[in-house]
Every structure is written in structure tokens, then in C-alpha cells.
């Protein structure tokens, strides 16, 4: 079991560029989540999904989009990168709602 994997590990974007952060889990978890972590802070939920085809906004969804076409994959899309989106992005998954969430290694994004 690889658990939750994320690519890329690090990326530099120019303002206005777009990119997709990839997330894949092999634990057959229905629930998946995207968080961002700013320096010295805890994590904040961006989007979550309760299953293939179903997504919903979290606490800080502005500037992001997600899709969930399969159980395994939950990509996060940034359409017009802004400096405020400089952060570390973590994907997580859980088997059931309100149970332990397992995190990927993160993607460090720098927007200049």
C-alpha cells in the first residue's frame, strides 16, 4: 500500500498560470480532502469529496477547483495562480466520515 501519494513535490508558478496538483490513494477510501498549510499554521480545508462524482467546498475554496471522476484520484486545480496561494498543499483520505484522515507528503507551491 502506497497510501496517499501527491505530485509534484515542488512547483514554482508565475502569477496567472494554472496547474493541477495530483492526489491518488490506494486504500479504497471514499472520502478525500485537500488542505493548505501556511507557514507556522495549522491546516485549512479547501475542498472535500465523499465519493466519485461528489465534491463540496471547505473553509477556503476560492481560487481552486476539484473533480473526482474515480475513487482513487482527487486532483486540485488552480486556474489563475496568485501569490496568496503560495503554501504547502496536503491531500488526505479516510474510510469513513469523521474518522482518521491519512495524509500525503504534500506539494510545496510557490507563486511569484
Amino acid at each position, binding site marked *: 500500500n502506497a497510501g496517499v501519494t501527491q505530485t509534484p513535490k515542488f512547483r514554482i508558478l508565475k502569477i496567472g498560470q494554472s496547474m493541477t496538483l495530483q492526489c491518488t490513494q490506494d486504500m479504497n477510501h471514499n472520502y478525500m480532502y485537500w488542505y493548505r498549510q501556511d507557514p507556522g499554521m*495549522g*491546516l485549512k*480545508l479547501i475542498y472535500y469529496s465523499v465519493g466519485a462524482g461528489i465534491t*463540496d467546498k471547505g473553509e477556503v475554496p476560492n481560487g481552486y477547483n476539484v473533480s473526482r471522476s474515480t475513487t482513487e484520484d482527487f486532483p486540485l486545480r488552480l486556474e489563475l495562480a496568485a501569490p496568496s496561494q503560495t503554501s504547502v498543499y496536503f491531500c488526505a483520505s479516510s474510510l469513513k*466520515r*469523521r474518522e*482518521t484522515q491519512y*495524509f500525503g*507528503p*504534500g506539494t510545496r507551491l510557490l507563486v511569484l
Partner: protein
Amino acid sequence: GESVGLHLPTLSVQEGDNSIINCAYSNSASDYFIWYKQESGKGPQFIIDIRSNMDKRQGQRVTVLLNKTVKHLSLQIAATQPGDSAVYFCAENLPHSGAGSYQLTFGKGTKLSVIP
């Protein structure tokens, strides 16, 4: 809004001693709590969780205590080792429907440094 907070931002302990990391939560409706460990450059790693119908739960070298009266959570690490050096986050979960029931609300974290 209500949020999870931590009493101490940094904690230094001698190797072999016990560590206690504290966390205060302000939302009395929260009924599920998790402790995560985050090493530098890595994602949060699950340590232990506890539900509000319990006041204590033990794992391997770790114990979580929940005091609902004062809305306080603590993580105790026995015989602290250098490998325990990391940032520790507590997170809470609300029971109601909607995004709140999926979202873990994280505190800012406590950095634990173990002195060899």
C-alpha cells in the same frame, strides 16, 4: 469563529523524560479529536484519536486525555526519544452535517524538541 488552540508553541524535553503537549478547544460541540505528528517536510501522521464519550485513551507510548469540563486535550509521550522531535497538532471535528462534519479544525501546532 471557534478554533482549536495550543497552550505552548515550543517544548524542549530531555531524552527519556515524559512529554506533555496541551491543547484547548473552544467548541463544546466537538466530539472527535485527533493528534497528528508532522516531521519537517512531511505530511501529518496520525498518532492517536479520542471521541467525546471517553476521557482517556492509550496507545504505544502515547496517551491522550480529554477533559470536556474545561475543554482541554493533552498528549502524553512516555520516554521521549529523539525520533519524537516534530510539530504536534491537535484537531477537532464537529458532529453536525455539512462541511463542518468533514473538516478537521487544526491548531497551530507545538514544536517538540528532544535533547539527547
